[in-house]
């Protein structure tokens, strides 16, 4: 009851504001979460916006320092308490969309984003068909910092050479292999493996194309093994490692200042080296990620649009350049990327050098990071090729599990089987694709408390055999020995959960 009242009120408010919003200027309270280091800058930028914007909008902004890492988690914990505008690393994107914590961009905004940003980063802000965020940076990738006094110029292209140098000098080669899928993927990308995920408009992951467990993948882990089993390997990605006995650290632009501070003139920056397996050399790949800015879903369309305008401004050319000047954040804005200043920055230059070998991060299932990161450990412990293969198998098994875990699948019933019809298959599936014998399961729908019915009817030939099973596993499968179809016909398949009885229902 209380709720309904509230609902009505909010709707009325929406309408009212719509009506005379455009008439004269709008005042809008807004909370914004940005990283500590750009807090003040952002404040200034908003002042700027208030002063200059042509729409007569004035924002009373409360700006809080919230690291990109926390922002997403916080938004998800409590959307109501969350900020109207917030920044986050792209790996959080899907979670946010799922949680309904980021607003879908209006058509105008979507167009603007597509127009001003590179395809890779746009993809990062896209789920299904729709855009949900504004690219903020495009420098979320890694490259190699090294100590010139330890690693000679000529060695920096070969991982093996670098490892040798480190071992000789009793120094570390810091490359986070044991606790980070983000870094560890580098080896797989080197050999052309990919893990591409597809999300729908709700941010739900619907399928994955993953080739880590493949001959190429095996090569990748062989290369990885060279590194992780070396005494000089140190699984870390902290620039500060140079202070504690590292000669090489693979990390990103954010550590530039720290490293420079420690190494001074000895600092060297370069794209990642290549490793060699069976005489073939593979250049280490990398993720090419970005940070995004999101807008919280709004109840009031005017505020919604106003916030979009602000977000566009904050991720526009000027603001991105300001951030670059102040904090050396690599811009995602095409025009900004083109400017000499950006081109000249050594960190970004290295990133640029690495870019041919890097893949846009796109959408990746939240659990993937946890699943993939363990490969490093497994590879380290592996003594032979079988061990390496096992690591990859485990990996694939868990990836597969991700999709069977959802409750509807786990507790839902499906049909699986075949028959001796002419073409060997008794149906063409909903995508019109043909399925192999006892291959793919066919969906059923719950029609009553305990009764399930096949999603469609099929022409089933006499002698067709099938089972109805639960959770895509054979633990619960009926009937005990396959169901045999006596006479051909156009049937629905009906199953009773409680009795476990399977029957055919003629359809016309």
């Amino acid at each position, binding site marked *: *009851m*209380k*709720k309904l009242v509230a*609902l009505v009120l*909010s*709707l009325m408010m929406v309408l009212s504001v*719509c009506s005379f*919003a*455009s008439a004269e200027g709008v005042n809008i309270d807004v909370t914004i979460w940005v990283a500590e280091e750009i807090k003040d800058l952002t404040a200034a930028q908003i002042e700027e916006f208030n002063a200059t914007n042509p*729409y007569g*909008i004035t924002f009373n902004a409360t700006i809080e320092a919230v690291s990109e890492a926390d922002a997403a*988690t916080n938004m*998800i914990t409590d*959307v*109501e308490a969350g900020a109207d505008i917030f920044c986050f690393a792209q790996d959080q994107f899907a*979670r946010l969309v*799922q*949680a*309904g914590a980021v*607003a*879908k961009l*209006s*058509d*105008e905004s979507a167009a603007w984003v597509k127009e001003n940003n590179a395809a890779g980063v746009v993809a990062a802000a896209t789920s299904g068909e729709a855009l949900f965020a504004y690219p903020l940076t495009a420098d979320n990738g890694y490259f190699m910092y090294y100590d010139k006094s330890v690693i000679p110029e000529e060695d920096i292209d070969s991982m093996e050479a670098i490892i040798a140098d480190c071992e000789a000098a*009793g120094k*570390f080669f810091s490359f986070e292999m044991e*606790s980070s899928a983000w870094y560890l993927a580098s080896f797989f990308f080197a050999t052309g493996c990919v893990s591409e995920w597809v999300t729908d408009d*709700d941010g*739900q992951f619907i399928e994955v194309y993953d080739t880590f467990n493949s001959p190429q993948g095996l090569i990748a882990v062989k290369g990885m093994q060279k590194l992780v089993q070396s*005494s*000089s390997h140190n*699984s*870390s990605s902290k620039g500060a490692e140079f202070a*504690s*006995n*590292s000669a090489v650290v693979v990390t990103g632009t954010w550590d530039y200042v720290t490293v420079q501070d420690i190494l001074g003139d000895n600092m060297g920056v370069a794209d990642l080296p290549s490793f060699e397996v069976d005489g073939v050399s593979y250049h280490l790949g990398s993720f090419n990620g970005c940070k995004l800015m999101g807008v919280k*879903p*709004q*109840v*009031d*369309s*005017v505020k*919604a*649009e*106003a916030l*979009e*305008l602000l977000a566009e401004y904050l991720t526009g050319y000027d603001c991105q350049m300001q951030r670059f000047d102040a904090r050396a954040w690599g811009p995602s804005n095409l025009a900004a990327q083109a400017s000499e200043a950006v081109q000249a920055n050594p960190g970004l230059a290295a990133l640029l050098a690495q870019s041919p070998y890097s893949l846009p991060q796109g959408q990746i*299932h*939240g*659990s993937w990071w*946890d699943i993939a*990161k*363990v490969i490093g*450990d*497994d590879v380290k412990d592996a003594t032979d090729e079988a061990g390496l293969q096992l690591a990859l198998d485990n990996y694939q*098994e868990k990836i597969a*599990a991700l999709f069977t875990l959802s*409750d509807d699948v*786990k*507790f839902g019933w499906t049909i699986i089987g075949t028959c001796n019809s002419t073409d060997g298959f008794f149906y063409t599936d909903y995508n019109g694709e043909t399925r192999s014998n006892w291959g793919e399961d066919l969906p059923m729908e719950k029609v009553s408390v305990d009764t399930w019915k096949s999603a469609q009817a099929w022409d089933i030939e006499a002698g067709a055999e099938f089972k109805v099973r639960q959770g895509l596993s054979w633990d619960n499968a009926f009937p005990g020995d396959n169901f045999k179809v006596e006479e051909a016909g156009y049937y629905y398949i009906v199953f009773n959960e409680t009795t476990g009885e399977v029957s055919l229902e003629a359809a016309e």
Partner: protein
Amino acid sequence: MTKYSDLEYLRLSKGDKFLYRLKCFFSGIPLFFKNLILAIASAFKKLGLAVAHEAADLVNTFKNGSVPTRVSYAVMGFGSFCRGQWLRGLLFLLMEIIFIGYMILAGGYWLGMLPSLGLQGPEQVATTVTSLRGGTNTVYTTVYHDNSFRILLYGVLTLFFIVAFIYTWRVNIRQNKINDQIIRSGKKIKSAGDDMRSLVDNSFHKTLLALPLTGILIFTVMPIIFMILVAFTNYDGTHNGFSNNLFHWMGLNNFNEMLNWSSGATSYAATFGEVLVWTLIWAFFATFTNYFLGMLVAMAINKKGIHFKKGWRTILVLTIAIPQFISLLYVSKMFARSGIVNNFLMDMGWIDQAHLIKFWEDPTLARITVIIINIWIGIPYLMLITTGILMNIPADLYESAKIDGASAWQQYTKITLPYMLFVMGPYLLTSFTGNMNNFNVIYLLTGGAPTNNASSAPGTVGYTDLLITWLFKITQGAESKYYLASVVGILVFVVVAVISLVVYNLLPSIKNEEDFQ
């Protein structure tokens, strides 16, 4: 098994005695559970009887009650007013008014929604507006409807309130009954003043307990009930009940998901088993290493002829003063791969950078390290507590032992230890269960690391993860499966409860109070 009389028992050899005791213990267990079940049964029986009795009493009170009493069934506090107990009357009436008001305004809604946990989730509306940029623009806004989380929360609260109301109603009836009796017996009825006075005197405990208990009820009992309920829903990151999908009742599915063995080693049950085992091992070592070493230190400090006792004690006690989040976080950094400890060892030349000690990377080593660091944390407390008790051991016990020719070690094993174990039995039990749920140490030290790659359970279980840290990580993980966390929580409770129950009934200090007194 054959029961021995005391005298027969005494004739047994050491080994037989032990065996006999063991037998007694195990043969005792089924009996214990039998009694437990019986106790529960009788408790239910009692409950039933009580309810019946209450009901009967209500009827009788109405039958032979005076007019005000009868009215009070409908209008609470009426009777009290009639008898000039305006204070009680007012309170009763107020309660009734508030209750009815609340139920009409809000309570009804929450209660009604409880079975479904909400009917309509949020929906995205595309509105084409005259854009601020000029022209038109399709803007997407969200309209929020029900909120499963709030429904569950306020639903439970409403239930609480109803119970509270029924109770007050009952009290109000009983009051009237008593008053009727008093009037019949021609005594004078307590006035508001008397009530007030008694609240600081003979029923002072009510005053004392009122505040704390309300707090506990709302901030401990209610959340726990909520937590238990969540275990029967599908509340998780993708069903957060408000901004994306509502969540709904799932019956026992979650327990099935957690406990079924269908997928063997990769099933959650397997993970749960592993974590449970480690939790128990941890709790055991954490408790007893601290206990014995703490006692040792205490004895060392208190030994005759040891100088600046106070100094030693102060140093140790001070470590209690430093907040754990500082000391633990720092210590965990000290033991890191490139941390101070390893560096020190390298400078000493005891290890080279090829063989750094992987305190946090190697499962077994990590587990040992946390236990050792926990000793470092725990000893000061135990030192304090045991000091106190050691002082209480009557000196003449030792003197007589000395005269009987007991060595220092014998004195320790034959007098000190039994005494300590006896007195501190309950304490040990509580600290054992406490350690099972020792979140801080693990979370701040390792955060559960190193990761257990074999497990496919949510929350990336680590080798040093306790059940408690694991369930926390489940809520924080990518899918944040709150419902699974609650299931784990409930299981933790069951484990702790069973352990305490069994141990508690075996503790000598509970069984035979008099020894050593």
